C-alpha cells in the first residue's frame, strides 16, 4: 500500500480518482490547490504525486509545483509525479509525454483527461514499482 497525494482543483475528478486508487489498495489524500499541497508534502512525504497542470490561481501552477518539488525539495526529489491535464499535445502551447524533461516538465509520466480509471490504476502501480527499484 502506498501513500498517494492527488493535487487537483477539480474536486469531483479528484474524488473519483481517489476512490479508484483507494480500491486499488492505496492510501490517498486530496489537495485542491498547490499551496496546501506543499504543506501536505512537508507534513508527510507521499510515495507518489498525481498533479493537475492548470489551477485557478495560475494556468501553469502544476508545472511550477513539479519544478519546485524536483529542484527545491531534496527530500521529495525522488517522488514520482504523474501529471494529469485536460489539454494535450494537439494544442498550440500544449504538451505530452515527449515534452517531459528535468527542467521544463520534470514529471515521471503524463495522462490526458478524461482518463480511464483502470489506466490510472495501472500507471500508478507501474510508477510505484519503478520507484521501489
Amino acid at each position, binding site marked *: 500500500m502506498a501513500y498517494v497525494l492527488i493535487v487537483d482543483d*477539480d474536486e*469531483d*475528478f479528484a*474524488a*473519483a*480518482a481517489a*476512490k*479508484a486508487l483507494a*480500491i486499488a489498495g492505496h492510501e490517498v489524500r486530496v489537495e485542491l490547490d498547490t499551496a496546501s499541497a506543499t504543506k501536505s508534502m512537508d507534513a508527510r512525504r507521499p510515495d507518489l504525486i498525481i498533479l493537475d497542470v*492548470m489551477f485557478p490561481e495560475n*494556468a501553469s501552477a502544476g508545472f511550477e509545483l513539479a519544478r519546485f518539488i524536483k529542484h527545491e525539495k531534496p527530500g521529495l526529489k525522488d517522488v514520482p509525479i504523474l501529471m494529469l*491535464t*485536460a*489539454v*494535450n*499535445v*494537439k*494544442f*498550440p*502551447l*500544449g504538451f*505530452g*509525454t*515527449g*515534452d517531459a524533461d528535468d527542467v521544463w516538465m520534470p514529471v515521471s509520466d*503524463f*495522462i*490526458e*483527461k*478524461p*482518463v*480511464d*480509471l*483502470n*489506466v490510472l490504476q*495501472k500507471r500508478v502501480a507501474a510508477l510505484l514499482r519503478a520507484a521501489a527499484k
Partner: protein
Amino acid sequence: MAANNESSAAVYELPLPAGPPAAAGEADGHARLPETLLLKNVLWFCHLRWAVVAILGTFGLLGLFPQVLAHVGLRPTADWPLVAAGILVAGNLAFSGHARLLKESGVPRYAHINLWGQIVFDLVVLTGVVHYAGSLETNITFAYLFHIVLACIFLSGTESLAVTLIACVLYMAVLAAEDAGLVAPQTLFAGAPPRLPIAAEPWIPIWNLALALFIWLAVWYLTSHLAAMVRARDEELGETNRRLEAALEERSRHMLRTTHELKAPFAAIHATTQLLLDGQCGPLPDEARAFVQRISTRCRRLANEIQEMVQLANLRSESQGTLPHAALDVAEILRGCIGQVKPLAEERKVIIEADLAQARTVGVEEHLKMLFANLLGNAVGYSYEGGRVRVRCRPGEGGGPEVVIEDHGIGIPADKLPRVFDEYYRTDEAVRHNKQSSGLGLAIVRHVAEEHGIRIRVESCPGAGTTFHLRLAVEREPSEPDSENKENHDGLRADCR
C-alpha cells in the same frame, strides 16, 4: 464589495487597463534611433570614413607629383591632405575601437555619445579641408551636407538642427578667420584670382554664405521631416507587430484555458461514471448501468468534440506567416504522439509498432503534433481490438521525411475516400465502430497539411485497414518552402488499392 472592520476597512479598487499604446499616426518619429541601431550606424560611419581617408591619402600622394596636378589645373597640395588623412585615421581607430567595446559589452548605451563625437570630429576636420581646398573658390562646402543628412537620419530633429548650426558656425568662422588674416585663404585651383577682402566687395561673399546656409537649412528641414515620417511609420509597424505577437500568444493561452475549463468537467463526469460502471460503489441494475454507460460515452465524445472544434477554429484563424517555423525531427514528434495515444491503444488492446529514423523538416511543431496525433488516434480508434498499428518514418528520396501510418482496422470504402478530409464527415462504418470520433480529426490534418505543403496519400480497403503515406518538406530555411510541395499545395490524394 468591501469588508468593514472597526480598525480599518480593506479597500480594493479595480485597476483600469493601461492606456492603449500610441495609435497609428500618433507616433511622432522625432526620437532618435534606439542605441542598438545607433551602434550599427556608428560602425558603418567608421567604415565610411576609411573611404574618405583613401580619397585624401590618394590626393596627398598626387601632391608629390606637382606637374601632374598642374596638368589638370590644380596647385601643389603641400601636406594638408596627408595630415587630414592621418588625423582621420587616428580618430577612426579611436571611434571604431570604442564602438567595438560597446558591442562586445552588450550595453550600447554610449553609442549616441560616440556618434556625436564622430560628427563633431568630422565637421572640424572638414572645416580644415574646406579652408585648404578653397572656402569660397570651390563647392567643397557642400560636403557639410553629408553630415547634415546623416545626422537627420541617425539623430532627433533638434540634434540634427544642432549639427546644421555647428556646420554653419564653423564655415562662417573659417571665412572670418581668412578675411581677418588669421589664416591665409587657400585654393586648389592654379588659375584662381587672389581673393579680395570682404570689405572690398561685400555682397558676393555675403550672398554666397547666405545661399550656402539656406541650402543647408532647407536640406536639414526636408531630410529631418522625411526621416521623422519614416521613423514614425517604423514605430507604428513595430507597435503593430508587438500587438499581433501579444494577441497570438494571448489567443493560444485563452484557447488552452477554454479547453481546460470545458473538458475538465467531462473528465470528472467520465471518472465518476466509470466508478459506477465498475461496480466500485455497489452493483447497478442492468437498466441503470446501460444509462450510465450512455452518459459516459456521450461525455467522452463531447469532450473530444469540444477539443477538436476549438482546435480547428484556431487553425482556421491562423495564417502561416505569423507562426514560428523551426527545424524539427519528425521521428521525435512521432514518439511524443505515440505516447499520447498510448492510453487509448491500451484501452482498445491495440499494439503500436514504431520504426522511426531521424528525418528532419521545417514547420510549426505544435501543428505537426496535431496532425500526427490525429492520424495515430484514428489508426488506433478504427483498429479492431487486439489489432496492430505500424508507424514508419524515414528520410525520403528527396530528403524530406516520409511517414507511413498503417492500421488493419475497418478501412474506408472507395467511394467515401475523397470525403474523409471534410469537416464532420464520418462513414457509417466509422460511426458504428468508434462512437468517440467527432469527424473533425482529418479536417484538422488537412489544414495542417495544406499549411505545411505536406502530401498525403491514403490507401484503404474495407475490412483490411488504411494506410496514410505522408511526404513532408525537406529541411530548409522557412523562407524557402519546398518548391515541389508548393506546387502541389492541394496534394491530398485518396486511393483505394
